[in-house]
């Protein structure tokens, strides 16, 4: 039985209630299908992965399954280097990255063009939330997907809160990987 990722969809930081437009929590298979369908998705991973290092391996699997660029924010790149994964992964701060993402004339990390879907994972909640907000208001052409263990209010699509269910979260990510590989 797959993990129910739609459960517990309340803001992880409880007072984080932005307004009329709030994210919807989706099952893995819907989020998986959206990522699979994306033309130029970007996986953005942050330094919380160091707290749960197995997530580095899972991030690599996700990226490989969809042949997707990884933006490693803060010093997250270190985790990828340690795993010998250095192709198609870029080191960039989340702040300048989001700044670039909001401009339609940006050419992307590899110079090959802009992105249509951004997928956040492992980024400090408050920071990720604010960067989702920037895109929500100032570049609505990009779909905002969170595959983090939190319910993310400013995403388009997110999981519910799995913050206290590590096993369930890992299972959800594995299911996502399986969908992308299919």
């Amino acid at each position, binding site marked *: 039985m797959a993990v129910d990722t739609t459960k517990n969809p*309340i803001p*992880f*930081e*409880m*007072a984080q*209630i*932005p*307004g*009329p*437009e709030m994210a919807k929590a989706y099952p893995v298979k819907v989020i998986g299908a959206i990522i699979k369908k994306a033309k130029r998705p970007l996986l953005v991973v*942050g*330094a919380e992965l160091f707290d749960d290092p197995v997530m580095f391996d899972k991030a690599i699997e996700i990226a490989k399954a969809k042949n997707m660029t990884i933006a490693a*924010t*803060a*010093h997250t*790149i*270190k985790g990828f*280097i*340690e795993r010998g994964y250095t192709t198609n992964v*870029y*080191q960039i*701060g*989340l*702040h*300048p990255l*989001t*700044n*670039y993402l*909001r*401009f339609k004339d*940006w*050419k992307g990390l590899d110079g090959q063009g802009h992105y249509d879907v951004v997928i956040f994972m492992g*980024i*400090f*909640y*408050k*920071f990720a*939330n*604010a*960067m989702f*907000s*920037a895109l*929500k*208001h*100032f570049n*609505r052409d990009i779909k905002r997907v969170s595959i983090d263990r939190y319910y993310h209010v400013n995403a388009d699509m997110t999981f519910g809160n799995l*913050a*206290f269910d590590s096993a369930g979260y890992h299972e959800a990510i594995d299911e996502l990987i399986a969908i992308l590989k299919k």
Partner: protein
Amino acid sequence: MAKLEGSFTVEDMKNVQINIGAVVKEEEEWDQPMGPFPKPQIATLRDWDFKILNRYRIFYAPADDTCTLCTFGPCDLTGNKRGACGIDMAGTCGKIVLVACLMGTCAHTAHGRHLYHWTLDKFGDMKFDMGTDILVTAPLTETIIGIRPKSLKDFGKALEYCEEQITQLLAATHTGQEGSYVDFESKALHAGMIDSLGKEICDMLQIVAYNMPRGDPNAPLVEIGMGTLDQNKAVLIAYGHNLAAGAEAMFYTETNNLWDKVDIGGVCCTAIDLTRIGEGMGEKKVPDMIGTKAKVAGAVGWWRKMVRAGIMDTVMVDEQCVWCDALKDCEERKIPLIATNDKILYGLKDRTNDPVDEIVDDLVNFRVPGVVILDPVKAGEVGVKTAIAVKPKRADIRNRIVLTEDEFKKLVSSCTKCNECAFVCPPHIRISNLMEEAAKGNLEPFSSTYEVCVGCGRCEQVCRQNIPILKMYEYANREYIRNQKFKMRAGRGPIRDTEIRAVGAPIVLGTIPGVIALVGCSNYPNGTKECYDIAKEFVDRGYIVVTTGCMAMDMSLYTDAEGKTIWEQYPGAFDGRNICNVGSCVANAHIHGAAIKVATIFAHRNHRANYDDIADYILSKVGACGIAWGAYSQKAASIATGVNRIGVPVVVQPHSVIYRRAFLGRADLPEDWMVIDARDGSKVRIEPAPEHMLYVAETKEEAMLMMAKLCFRPSDNSIGRMIKLTHYCDISMKYFGKLPDDWPVYVRHASELPLAWKDQMMKELEEKYGWKIDWKAKKIVEGPIRPADVSFDPTNIERKIRVRK
């Protein structure tokens, strides 16, 4: 109209020249002519602001999607929609940013206004004198107002100017006024500049009146930490940012020989300022070296932890950064509270005009939880007397405050692991895990997260089991608290002219890799330890590290292997491999001041009423970067914005995204990086240096890398650029495991390549980036954005062009 004595009227002002002694004298004593912008109004420096804002794009991350500022609202602004009044989401964000900056600016300026009246009342007008080592005495006042103050009274003119600007700026935020987000940001930059001036006024007034150190690199080491407060004496805590009442408590204690009965400590910036009193070389109107008798209990973030540790007997609050429920905290623990400043009155009765003994009697017998006393002298006396008299009465309560082993165990086992607390905890501490471990007898998680916890108390509010989580922290860390005794360097005040002369050239040419300023509070998650780590990283690398306020306090709580605090590890001059504690938050002004002095003392620029020119010089040539790692208050917003207007980038901690706004450069757009060569007016494309103006970093590692990068300036000479690049690359290797991707952007000549990676880099430049290399001569023939040119004179201001090509 009533005629004032000594006044005269001239009916027809045309062709009349009036020479008033003082004005003429001032002109004579200051060889600089009046610059173009004395007392700039909102729009005066708008051109300069737009130069910053065009290069560093305004970035908003709205904290909410609606506006509720007027009765048309709530308006849904999602997706940059417009509200009923016509403002869009970006405009609304700009407005909120301006309001936040104004809150900070008002706090500093109002503090200055209070000190102005109080110091003149108490001491009378005094000569404004910074001693023989500091001749550019009030750099911000001089640069912004165009006057050079001669006595404390002269700061009145500067204060009036600040107050007028604040009123005009605040008016612009009314519904139906400003609608352009760019202009809101220009106004915010103006507010930031006023903030810096307000701070200078505050600190200059108190330095002179209270005889604080005037740029003393060897300011004494003072005691800091909860464990320094002697529990055998009564403990009086002064809490806030305005030293007036706390200082009077010290004078009263000194005059009446009561130091064996009372210990006076401070929380937040009042603490830092109390430890500076009487340590200067000026007029001695206060007891000599009395400051070293005060103790710094801790920074603002430690308040709740301290109050729960049962350390204090009486609290005097003044203004700014005092928790709004300090009275409730105190009342629950029967700690009498005295409010001493009209900005915080807590609903208490004003007892300013009542006899001292009556007030003390009421407080000591707990008839009232607290009182207002707006006369600092009386407040000081009541504070000391109350603390001494109430101490024995509180003995029983003190014991009750602290948990017993049984109580602790019981509470630990009452946790249902519902995790409600973790949902509201800013640093996301998994409190239920701490409880679980504690139940097994392992208190380590309670210890290792003690300083990560910011003491906000949100967890306690939501816990359905009513577990007093902060008290549990206190219990688990009681030994640590008892032994929390460290040394901090007292605030030294401004930077000396001689220091600027020594470091001016190395800073501008880049051989001192940069000036790192750690300012503001560090009370947000991990701020405490991480500010020490950051300071240590840069001071070890030979940067000039300066710090103020709670940052200076918090970094004092850590020691090296030999048990030395950062103040004992390094000297306190404004020089490479030194760290100076400039003073409390208002002393931030001296960091602006130091940058101005590099322009005026080292480069001989006229700074008088010449703000944009000086800011342009700093942006182009002074490799400095500020960091506010955990700052929570609106003052942090105004401080950072003021620092930005004068051309210095700032890195902030992720919680600062709540301020909504950043200034970020786009390195991918060459047109954003065009400057003028002042020698001939030609346009030159520069490397993105500094790349950003206001930047949120996710981790301390990212912050350090970014700060090293933001110290790059177009004027670095080749040796300087090599040194800066070396640190940038080395920090990257150390924390990221690789060289930064953009290192080639900063290379203009082979001699700028860091020696450790030189050959590898040359190869990469050729193979990966297609640069032409002359391998025999080991030279770069083609590739860089521009060649190294030591006489290049970058500017962003047309009027600085010397000869047009």
